[in-house]
């Protein structure tokens, strides 16, 4: 079995960091981009700019979801690890009590 080690605070900070990234990406929205043939004097280009803006916005939404997903999964992993530690400690505590009773300590 592989060795395992982690600092819970480090995981929590990193999860917070990814939520900050999501916040930064929310500010990178392409809003109020001028479109329309009157602006570009070229119908196909005007339509193209609209499509490109939409595609880039779809990507941004996907990136925000990914950043939040990373943070959420880090939290989930940390919670599982903490729970395992707690359960492990409790089990070991019980075993220690039984051992003490058996050995009369």
């Amino acid at each position, binding site marked *: 079995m592989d*060795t395992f080690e982690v*600092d819970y605070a480090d995981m929590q900070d990193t999860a917070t960091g*990814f939520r900050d990234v999501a916040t930064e*990406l929310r500010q990178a929205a392409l809003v*109020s981009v001028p479109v329309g043939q009157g602006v*570009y004097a070229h119908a196909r280009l005007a339509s*193209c700019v609209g499509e490109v803006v939409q595609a880039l916005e*779809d990507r941004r939404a996907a990136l925000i979801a990914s950043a939040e997903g990373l943070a959420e999964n880090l939290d989930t992993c940390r919670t599982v690890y903490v729970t395992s530690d707690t359960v492990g400690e409790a089990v070991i505590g019980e075993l220690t009590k039984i051992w003490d009773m058996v050995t009369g300590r």
Partner: protein
Amino acid sequence: MTGDPSSVLLAAQLHRSAGNLTSEAGVTASSLQVETWTGLASLAFRHTRTRFVSMLTDQTNDLRSAADLITDYAVVLRERGAVLETARAEVQAGWAKLRTNPLDPRALFDVLAAQSTFRITQAKLRSDGDYTADALYALIASDTPRTWGLTWPPEGWPEPGSLQTVELDEDILENASFDQENVSQGGIGDCYAIASIMALMQTNEGDQQLRDNLRWDAARSGYWVTLYDDGEPVRYFVDKGQLGGATENGQPGIATIYEAALSQHLGFTDLDDGGYPEDALAVLTGSSTKTYDDRPWLGWDVGGMRSDVADGAQLVASTRKPDNGDTWSIEATQRSTGGANETVTLDVVGAHAYTIVKVEQDGSVWLLNPWGSENSADGGGPFRVSAKDFNTIFHTVASTGGNS
């Protein structure tokens, strides 16, 4: 309509600003590590984080590229808009004079010249807009709706659609005929590139350049192809051609290899996005290119084009789009199977590129269609169009002339 350059610039600035903010998010994401974390789950996390940062970088680059393209168009729009406004004012002033004196020849000349300038500038602006749109579409070419709802672990943006390919034999270079009449464009819309490759095959020097810029790599079973980016050589590895693309005598050939390299160079999923012969010639030869067009009052620079052909330069002519249908039906001169020249009726294809084989003193031009032999428009082989038809049908000639 001359557009609104300030609003176009605003669109560019918004893209650049979004790109900068996305870049900052990328810097933040790059620094996010869980240094103390070991074990299998940590490996999965690091892999996902790396892909996420890579996607942020892609998004940053595409936003900035879009900003650059839109900025360039804004500049062009402003310049051409000024020309259009001036031409419009000159037309109005000329008509005012003509109303006063209908027999004023100078006023009539001014009106006609200004009208010509107006039409030409409008055509150039349309061309600029098409170029910008093509380049913008290329940025998002590989996106699909599957991008939506991407969640952890990110799947990444979909790979460009996998193109069907053909194998490239190691003896292509050895067996190549370098005969432009053996080349056929196939089903990909890259006439501008294939006509340019065919133009190179027109001279021994061009053949040699195509040969020198190809090298078979036995260890990797593919070809190294040298192209040029702003005159600087760049190399691409090509081990497969595009199925349905260019062939020579029906088989993968030199044009197939260069076509695949150009596809990599241009970053297109395929080469169906259109392009300009002057760009293709520059990428293929590393030379600066120039263009000829139908100058107001002066017409085509027949002497210049003749001189370029005589000097061994590569010339490719682009057709306009017909007002009706897709082709022009004209009478042309073509070589018969017996070798004599004969007058034939054939079609010249609109929005297409042709290799220029020869320019006659009277302004008539010998052309070669990259569609190759037995094609449905002209049957293949060089044909000559009259100077009058050339004026009607063609709008630009790209040339590598003047670089020797």
